[in-house]
């Protein structure tokens, strides 16, 4: 098993947090994992993305040239990563901020109006978790439970109160994914 995921969006959308959460969960499950962030020049806004590889054997290169899967949170990221995807790769899109359709026809595409869903759940900032939950449900790099457990490493102190919201968002994402899988 080797799962290669790219998460991409604006800085501030929680791209890194989503990636680190997945990495932490994978580590907790005793898997090999690498997480590689990459930032644009901006501190806020601008683009940011990360590569996460989860595997059950040692990982050679942490760089993902051609993602098997990608969580895409804004339009520039779709423009950048769509052409790089592996054939049959999985694209999970934050439809709220991506007005255009996917051009390639050899990809599996799941569009989620994630920002809206997150707002409905109570906080737009949980958009990343919805998308991550969906990814985890489809590709199963780690158990959803492990993701939820890992939340406590990141949401500490004052942020602890956000754990339930994020758990819900992960679940919600998984639920949407199940519909998507079922609907296929």
């Amino acid at each position, binding site marked *: 098993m080797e799962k290669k995921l790219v998460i991409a969006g604006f800085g501030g959308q929680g791209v890194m947090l989503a990636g680190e959460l997945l990495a932490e969960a994978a580590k907790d499950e005793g898997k090999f994992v690498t997480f590689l962030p990459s930032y*644009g*020049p*901006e*501190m*806020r*806004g*601008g683009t940011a993305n990360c590569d996460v590889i989860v595997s059950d054997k040692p990982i050679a290169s942490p760089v993902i040239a051609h993602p098997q899967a990608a969580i895409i949170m804004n339009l520039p990221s779709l423009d950048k990563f769509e052409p790089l995807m592996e054939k049959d790769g999985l694209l999970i899109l934050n439809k709220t901020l991506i007005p255009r359709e996917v051009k390639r026809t050899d990809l599996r595409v799941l569009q989620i109006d994630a920002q809206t869903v997150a707002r409905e759940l109570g906080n737009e900032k949980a958009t990343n978790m919805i998308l991550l939950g969906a990814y985890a449900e489809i590709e199963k790099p780690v158990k959803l439970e492990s993701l939820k457990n890992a939340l406590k490493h990141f949401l500490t102190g004052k942020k602890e109160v956000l754990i339930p919201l994020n758990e819900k968002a992960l679940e919600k994402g998984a639920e949407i994914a199940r519909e998507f899988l079922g609907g296929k």
Partner: protein
Amino acid sequence: MKLIYKKPDTITERDTTYCPGCPHGIAHRLIAELLEEMDLVKKTVIVWPVGCSVFGYYFIATDAVEAAHGRACAMATGIKRAHPESFVISYQGDGDLASIGIAEAVHAAARGERISVVYINNGNYGMTGGQMAPTTLIGQVTTTTPYGRKPELNGFPMHVPEMFAALDGPAYIARAALDSPQHIIQAKKFLRKAFTAQKNNLGFSLVELISACPTNWKMTPVEAMERIRKQVLPVFPIGEFKVAKGVE
């Protein structure tokens, strides 16, 4: 209807790379407005620093060079000496000017180099993620003063204009703030004098602009402007520290 304000043409159409609410953009606009008003746009070379404003040349449409971190005043000196007809601005952050670049700034000032320095004091290193700057306030938490800046360990906030006022080379030295419309109007007045100092060949000029870094201060932009008034200005008071004759 009468046009009261209009975005200057010298500001490009490109979106800035700054965080929402970051006053770097305000400083840019003031510079652009003054260059237009003083008819300097086509003579100007701006020396951009390493820091959040590293891409400044994408936003202000003049000839430009990108200096090594801290060396903007030296580079500006090289340009001005080699080509005295150019109008040369050195735009620098507080990490760039007050920390790594203090030698080049002090000496450009002591030499009375005919350059104008716009010095953005936002109390930390924005670009690299909010580390302590020489201007960080006592007690302020940054990524390299996680327990707050302690004078015994990290020293004291550095007051560049006050220090430079002890030199004979500067023609104009002032500090303004970018936290409110009123202060911004004043900042523009000070900058105009600084540019006049160079235009009239009077000597070195520098305006410190008290700025904010909402991202690394972990505040909303509005809170950050509030903090300037409540916490920063008492330590870094607005004022003119050196005004040569002929600057007005």
